[in-house]
């Protein structure tokens, strides 16, 4: 490797504002966005705003409901939000307005005749079947197209089923107790979204450097005759390529360190990425990204065509490669791409090695598919590469 060329390429990259943003800053922004969005949907800090309109007066029915509502409105641990933040109102119109304005997720309403019907049911149920129109009714209002509203509504429906069981107990009706246990499948008990996205964003950052930065820069300096100029010197092709590759690997290293420090300080990622197998997957990602960059820089005649090709490859690869969300269950029309996409295997492999989740593909494919892509892209690029050409 020619050290002066290596240094020049590093200096050139550092002075390029776009390089700084896309390789060093953007991964931090993307990581933040992803963790903030998905962590809030993980249930750990999940909280809904519910308005309770209780026009039923006093009675056993409303007493049970209020006890349940108080229970779900109490934080499970000190310092955490409760599952439902309860606001009690008597004005329906005001409650519906707050729901429409997204200041509440659902409205739970106990009608005026709730306690009366509840009492009747207690008596009638001992005599036999209770007619439908005599059953007490709880009204849940939600906004259909809002995810949080639908989720809150589903949870409350389950809660109400629990209330029914409680009511049955109050009536001394024997109901066999069903014990419910849950088990995490695929995803480990230690799963956390910060680690999950750390792996995805790291792969994205490596591909931003290798595929986008190196690919477009190679096309640029080749189309401008810079390589041609080097060809007139005693420098060997291998020296130029090694300097190009190592300078981009330095950028990847910086991107990795910055992301790790940021993710550790602000989101508490674990050190799982330093598992030997995780490091191996990171290195494989770096090598694959560089071969893709070499390919883009080789087959493109101009920086513009390189940029177009790099984007054409990178966007579907990252979004259908499981970097940000699971992709193995996608419809067959696009799942073929998921299965040929090397990033799918690198992301799954890295997360598996970090102890985050199992990969639903044979273990050897996690290495084999990226390796086949690396070899293929490298061979094509070496075959097509020319010093001159372009503009």
């Amino acid at each position, binding site marked *: 490797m*020619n*050290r*002066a*060329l290596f240094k*020049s*390429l590093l*200096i*050139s990259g550092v*002075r*390029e504002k776009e390089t700084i943003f896309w390789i060093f800053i953007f991964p931090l922004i993307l990581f933040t966005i992803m963790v903030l969005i998905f962590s809030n949907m993980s249930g750990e800090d999940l909280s809904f705003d519910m308005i309770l309109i209780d026009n039923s007066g006093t009675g056993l029915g409303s007493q049970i409901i209020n006890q349940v509502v108080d229970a779900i409105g109490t934080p499970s641990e000190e310092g955490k939000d409760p599952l439902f933040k309860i606001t009690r109102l008597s004005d329906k119109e005001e409650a519906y307005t707050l729901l429409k304005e997204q200041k509440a997720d659902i409205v739970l309403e106990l009608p005026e005749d709730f306690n009366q019907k509840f009492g009747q049911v207690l008596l009638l149920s001992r005599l036999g079947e209770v007619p439908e129109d005599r059953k007490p009714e709880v009204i849940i209002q939600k906004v259909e197209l809002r995810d949080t509203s639908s989720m809150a509504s589903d949870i409350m429906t389950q809660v109400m089923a629990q209330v029914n069981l409680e009511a049955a107990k109050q009536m001394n009706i024997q109901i066999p107790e069903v014990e419910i246990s849950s088990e995490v499948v695929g995803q480990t008990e230690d799963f956390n979204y910060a680690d999950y996205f750390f792996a995805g964003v790291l792969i994205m950052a490596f591909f931003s450097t290798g595929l986008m930065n190196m690919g477009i820069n190679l096309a*640029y*300096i080749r189309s*401008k*005759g*810079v390589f*041609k*100029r*080097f*060809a*007139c*010197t*005693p*420098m*060997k092709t291998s020296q130029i390529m090694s300097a190009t590759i190592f300078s981009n690997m330095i950028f990847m290293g910086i991107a990795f360190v910055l992301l790790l420090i940021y993710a550790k300080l602000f989101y508490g990622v674990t050190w799982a990425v330093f598992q030997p197998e995780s490091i191996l997957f990171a290195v494989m990602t770096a090598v694959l990204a560089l071969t893709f960059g070499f390919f883009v820089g080789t087959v493109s005649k101009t920086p513009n065509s390189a940029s177009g090709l790099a984007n054409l490859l990178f966007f579907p690869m990252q979004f259908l490669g499981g970097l940000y969300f699971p992709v193995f269950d996608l419809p067959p029309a696009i799942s073929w791409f998921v299965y040929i996409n090397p990033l799918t295997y690198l992301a799954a492999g890295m997360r598996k090695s970090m102890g985050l989740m199992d990969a639903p593909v044979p273990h050897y494919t996690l290495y084999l598919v990226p390796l086949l892509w690396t070899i293929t892209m490298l061979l094509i690029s070496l075959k097509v590469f020319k*010093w*001159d050409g372009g503009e």
Partner: protein
Amino acid sequence: MPNTILKVDNLKKHYPTVKAVDGISFEISKGTVFTLLGPNGAGKTTTLEIIEGIKNSDDGEIEFFGEKMKHVTRDAKERMGVSLQSTNFIPHLKVREVFELFASLFKKNLPVDEVIGFVSLEEKKNDLVEKLSGGQKQRVAIGCALINDPDMIFLDEPTTGLDPQARRNIWDIVNHLKKEGKTIFLTTHYMEEAQELSDVVCIMDHGKIIAMGTPAEHIKRLGERNYIEFKAKLIPEEIRELNSWDVEEVEVEDDNVIIPTKELHSILEKLLSWANEKGMSLNDISIRQPNLEDVFLSLTGRRLRD
């Protein structure tokens, strides 16, 4: 030829649709400025790029510093300096950084500051190359070609696209190098440049060498003639009339008229009285000596700029 530094024998480079270089041979002596002159597409740059080691030839042989080679070796590249037709470097580097980079590529190199001084870029050495003017960038390119103190310097159209002052600055550098005894291989499509700088001019067209010699030898081949030039709107009948005099073929392009003749005094007198009779005004009338442009015209029937 004694002191031959470069010998090219039957060099060929054929593409599917064009014979870019079609069996050319020449020799360059140490300490001379050898110029390849020809219109765009004549094959000058392809010839140069084969000799510089960028392209491979289809056939032919190159003898560099007494050593025969099919393709230019790394040792030969250590002894040559190159300035390509289009000047670009790794982006966002400063002038000094570019020179330092090129200095690192050769076993032998001159002090960077000395080269920066030689191409008069002391004040710009800490500026980014992309911020420089076209002429300054060209001086960076020439400086990079000199950084290894080469025995032979290749300058491919070093003044194309430059303003007259910047062009004159480059000529000064070339003349300075010539005084230092450097061997220079120049390509250009500017006949004034070839005439001003060259010891030997090789005229190339359609991939072949059509004439070679010193500028004076080329011009001498045209014989003793002068050119009367003026601007006037002539009708075909008037052009036929002029051609019936003791002149070479009259050249008319728009309202520019050129009359080549060996009988300057008589033809000039005749022209003035002919114009007077016709009540015609001859604008911007001038008389000049033949130049390489005229040589090229007489050899190919076309002007260099065509």
